[in-house]
């Protein structure tokens, strides 16, 4: 296998690497990459975990991989339906080991803005809104997020609005993996196609990089698992992630 990452495989695989054996792990709406990461972890690793999702699935075996990460096929071959109220309650009572949550802006403490660009009352851009984060980020044992654009407008010193507080355990972009250390995001590793200097230059908050190193390349099992989920590259094409210029200008 070639020692290389595509920006897409970098994000999905590094999200999958946050998943740990036997833990309860959740993927939600608007979350194609975490959905792929969760399905990938089931195939790539020689241990198992408890996968629940917003379609109500509990360790589902979907017959196809949906575009919508809340698609009902994600509850195919499930033995129970664990519905929306259930997984939120699970989280607030402290039993959600890992949840994936979207974020438009992320600051150095790992808080998130999903609400607005600009002033809340006179927004420049109205974003999707509170969603899971405000309740799940502070109550899940760990929460991880991803951004397809690594820039000073997505990784910011100061959020336009703090939708969710609590500190992401992990953040993945096309060029970097951050994890929480002593209450702040620290650089864990950088994409070998990029560099520590580039990550610093393109990040709006300051971070500790003392333990950072180039990200380990994907294993054969990881590569094969992701390929089996996206054999024709449709997800990769649709995601249109690039290392340096985000395909979509909108945040």
């Amino acid at each position, binding site marked *: 296998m070639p020692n290389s990452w595509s920006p897409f495989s970098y994000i999905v695989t590094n999200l999958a690497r946050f998943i740990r054996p036997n833990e309860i792990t959740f993927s939600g709406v608007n979350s194609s990459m975490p959905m792929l990461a969760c399905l990938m972890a089931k195939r790539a690793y020689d241990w198992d975990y408890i996968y629940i999702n917003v379609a109500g699935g509990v360790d589902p075996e979907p017959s196809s991989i949906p*575009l919508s990460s809340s698609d*009902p096929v994600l509850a195919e071959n499930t033995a129970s339906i664990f519905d929306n*109220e259930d997984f*939120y309650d699970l989280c607030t009572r402290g039993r959600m080991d890992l949840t994936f949550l979207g974020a438009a802006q992320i600051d150095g403490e790992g808080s998130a803005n999903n*609400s607005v660009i600009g002033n*809340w009352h006179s927004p420049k851009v109205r974003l999707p809104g509170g969603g*899971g984060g*405000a309740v799940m980020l502070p109550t899940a044992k760990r929460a991880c997020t991803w951004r397809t654009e690594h820039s000073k407008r997505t990784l910011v010193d100061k959020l336009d609005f703090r939708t969710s507080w609590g500190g992401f355990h992990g953040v993945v972009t096309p060029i970097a993996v951050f994890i929480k250390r002593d209450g702040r995001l620290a650089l864990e590793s950088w994409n070998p196609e990029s560099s520590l200097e580039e990550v610093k230059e393109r990040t709006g908050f300051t971070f500790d990089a003392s333990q950072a190193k180039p990200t380990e390349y994907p294993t054969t099992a990881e590569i094969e698992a992701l390929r089996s989920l996206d054999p024709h590259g449709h997800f990769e094409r649709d995601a249109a992630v690039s290392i340096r210029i985000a395909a979509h200008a909108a945040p």
Partner: protein
Amino acid sequence: MASGFKGKGKNVSLEELVAKVPNGASLALGGSFLHRGPFAFVRELIRQKKTQLEIIKQSPGYDIDILCRAGIVKKVRAGIVAMEGNFGLAPSYRKAIESKAVELEEHACATLTAGLRAAAYGVPFQPCGGLQGSDIPNINGWKRIDDPYGQGEPVWVIPAISPDIAVIHANEVDQQGNVRVYGTSHWDRIMSRSSKTVLVTAEKLVEDHIFTDQPEVTLIPYFMVEAFSIVPQGAWPGSCWPYYEIDYPAVEEYMSSLSQDVLDAHLKAASEKLELINA
């Protein structure tokens, strides 16, 4: 007025069902994003030129977008709004909020559920976990209270939200109006319990014994349902598991431009489906 809905005559046309919605009503819409939403009902709201509606839903998308596009929404209370898949933000909703044509009460999904739970439980407010450090409570003027028993941390309390009408798209109903859905119930259950009344569209009318054979599968008992209408494909262009998937080309067409022509064509494409049903 009795507390439940008994009697015959609940099975009405979609037009008659939607005619029960007064202007200015608050509607909790079932489903989530493009999945099992009462979308034929929503389009009929537009055809009947309702005005000043309040829309309540944890994760609206197509429904709030098309209602904003038609200009018949006054206020929305929502957790997360998007078209999902590859479609991204909901453009007409976004425009309506940015231009201040529509008032937004921004929630986390779970705070909206907490408000609905308060109404369902018959109490004025409901504690909700999380929310520490979030700017959302302040925007909404929510209060945080100490645990009166002195055992736990302070907790945010969300005021009761009691929609005038819950609108649910179901898989099956029987003649009396018992309701079943397949797959996840999304937030339909708490919506039905918190609302003053429930209106239902359903893919199929089934014989009574289907429900009595397996009563534990029933999501909403008939006495909570004021009226229903049989509307196959009623969640189009969204999915209704296990009958049909999202009609992606139709959503793409809807999203292709914000012009009136595209909206009209979309409503017409849907109404042809409705005519087929009535035939």
